[in-house]
């Protein structure tokens, strides 16, 4: 039996990016929600829920980049070159919010500067990621193994709309995380925010779901021909069930459920996206097999993935477990 290495690697990278969206999604979301909370102690508590873990979360982004570099160097070079400006903006934004974690607790008089850096960095990084995603779905102009489009191809309505949608998605993830990790008044406020955020995200999901097939005939064909249509019908149904679950959990105040259900919602959207783009790694035309690194590269790196990822998941889970439980506003003493 021969392994289809490009296929496995596509799965690894999809997994890495999903882990990133899930994990950094909620801590970016906290920055997006910061403007709704003016009180210093509340902001401290919100940041404290992720202070010990955000760095590990962001490492998944680096894994996505390095994995793409290793397994699909052509995709890495073409996609990153094509989306140069949004990526640079994202990196700069991540610098601001990353240092805010350290600087904010060190500063007193200038704390507002780092609050602003945290808010701005989180929103801009998320928006840029959405733009990257949208531009990626729209497709990149490739000739002769090089990007030949313009520097501002990404500056189009659909990518910008995706940027706004991702901001809504991460905000909802952040809110669900916080109502699980906080207590008292802060938790109460999160519950109030949760349903409006759910509505906003649903609108974005609906809009992208209509817009994508309308603007991209190839994706429309994939969605609406038999037997594919038959497989896709459950997706909207599951989305509806998940949303009802969130509404119910918010009404009954079951703290952990909205977070898990929001993750499910993100996972469903993500799957829909993956199905639409398959098997291209540079839409609309370069497949994972065409962009593949030599088998010796993919095999070598895959050994590392197979051995290390389970270990990483174990100690990441351990770290989350050490910092389990609620963070208390105002004092931080347990």
């Amino acid at each position, binding site marked *: 039996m021969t392994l289809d290495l490009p296929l496995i690697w596509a799965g690894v990278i999809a997994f890495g990016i999903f882990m990133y969206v899930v994990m950094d999604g909620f801590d970016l979301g906290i920055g997006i929600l910061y403007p709704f909370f003016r009180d210093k102690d509340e902001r401290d508590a919100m940041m404290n829920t992720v202070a010990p873990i955000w760095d*590990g979360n962001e490492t998944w982004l680096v894994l996505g980049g390095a994995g793409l570099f290793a397994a699909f160097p052509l995709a890495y*070079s073409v*996609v990153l*070159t094509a989306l140069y400006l949004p990526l*640079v903006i994202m990196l700069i934004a991540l*610098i601001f919010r990353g240092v805010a974690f350290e600087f904010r*607790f060190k*500063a007193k008089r200038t704390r507002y500067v780092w609050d602003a850096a945290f808010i701005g960095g989180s929103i801009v990084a998320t928006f840029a990621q959405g733009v990257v995603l949208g531009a990626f779905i729209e497709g990149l102009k490739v000739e002769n193994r090089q990007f030949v489009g313009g520097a501002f191809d990404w500056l189009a309505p659909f990518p910008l709309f995706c940027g706004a949608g991702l901001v809504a998605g991460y905000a909802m993830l952040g809110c669900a995380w916080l109502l699980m990790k906080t207590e008292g008044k802060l938790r109460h406020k999160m519950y109030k925010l949760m349903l409006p955020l759910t509505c906003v995200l649903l609108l974005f999901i609906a809009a992208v779901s209509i817009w994508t097939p309308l603007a991209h005939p190839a994706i429309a064909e994939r969605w609406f021909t038999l037997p594919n249509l038959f497989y896709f019908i459950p997706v909207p149904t599951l989305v509806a069930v998940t949303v009802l679950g969130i509404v119910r959990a918010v009404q009954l105040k079951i703290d952990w459920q909205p977070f898990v259900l929001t993750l499910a919602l993100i996972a469903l959207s993500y799957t829909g996206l993956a199905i639409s783009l398959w098997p291209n790694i540079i839409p609309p035309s370069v497949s994972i097999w065409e962009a593949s690194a030599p088998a010796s590269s993919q095999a070598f790196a895959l050994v*590392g993935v197979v051995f290390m990822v389970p270990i990483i998941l174990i100690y990441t889970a351990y770290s989350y477990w050490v*910092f389990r439980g609620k963070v208390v506003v105002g004092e931080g003493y347990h």
Partner: protein
Amino acid sequence: MFGLDALELARIQFAFTVSFHIVFPAISIGLASYLAVLEGLWLKTDKEVYYDLYRFWLQIFAVTFGMGVVSGVVMSYQFGTNWSQLSTAAGSIMGPLLTYEVLTAFFLEAGFLGIMLFGLNKVGRGLHFFATLMVAIGTLISTFWILSSNSWMHTPQGFSLVDGVFTPDSWWDIVFNPSFPYRLAHMAVAAFLSTAFVVGGTAAWHLLKGKRDPATRMMFSMALWMALIVAPIQALIGDFHGLNTLKYQPAKVAAMEGHWETEKGVPLLLFGIPDMQEETTHYAIGIPRLASLILTHDLDGEIKGLKEWAPQDRPNALIVFWSFRVMVGLGLLMILCGVLGLWLRRGGKVYEAKGFQRLMLLMGPSGIIALLAGWVTTEVGRQPWVIYGLLRTSDAVSNHSATQMGVSLTIFVVVYFAVFGVGITYLLRMMRKGPVLGLLTAQIAEQGGPGHSRTPARPLSAAAESVDGEVDVEQEKRP
């Protein structure tokens, strides 16, 4: 921008971002190991001075590490954004090495960093020490992979070129390429030495301010032992590294030495101004035959001059000549510091000798400067090649416009100076504040939570004053 083309701007951008970046991981590598030693000594001896020092350097480590992470994410994307042709050709080799770095090092560091910074009261001393060790080991594993990748570009082997793509044949040969062991040892030791001088400089500042507490004396003493033992070892490793370079990249050595003609019994130039146009080194002052002796271990050894290579294949000798001398000069000063320290120790005057303390204060950034100068030497010295002898830097770049590169470079310069400038200011203020004594005794009374500005778990919060100079009132009111 300023008449520079896209290639030059891309090179400046890489040089700028990587130079800023490398300082933080270098100090993180050194401090992580130092923290592991301090915590180990604390657990073994139960002496509070080790714990106080651990807490002090932990907060500096946290900020340094944070800046290293965010500036490092930029690096991992820059290969693709700015050097797409390099990525397409050599991603098959560099990509897996970087993937291993992420999998075996970055996650390990990030996974245990939270526990290291905030978890002492949650996991107990033994597990906390384990977390510190994991972070320290993670930084070293990271050094291993990134230097393997870098060294492979200097001394590529273990591949075949298939349709312009570097296709791996033997990963063992790729990872353990000829220059890798030397470069790895040289860089790891440079990180330790840079950190030792940062620690020593900090201690010297407090000694000069009149502090004589056990923590300040302890860190001064530890830094001096490091300088005494490690600086000479570094000189030795550097010598071996140089010989390896002479074997694989003789043009780089010719540029480092400012030699144009292939000769026997070559002098070691102490001063000179290499001129790339006129193919000579002006105002050369040298010690006869010494370069031949150092490089070939023979007074009459032959060394190739730069004229052996066509003008378009030569590295810029003016830069390399001087960056090399800055590195070596600082290295010799470090050895001198170690020896002076030992000599003063014998007279029992090491904590009182003001002149020496001033020297150590001045030498605080010396390791970092030497490290940067060393990297300039090796990286400018490998030009015009990005993969030595096989892929030219000019053939590796993305096809961005000069405007786009100029704009992004401007953004990076402004943001790096603003953000990391503030970060470095914070670091210096924390160092100026010095270790807080008797933390453990105070901490038994109050348990801390993660990240809170007023909890003892946040090391800084134990001190009443924040880094931007305002008194934390709430802290003052605390009984």
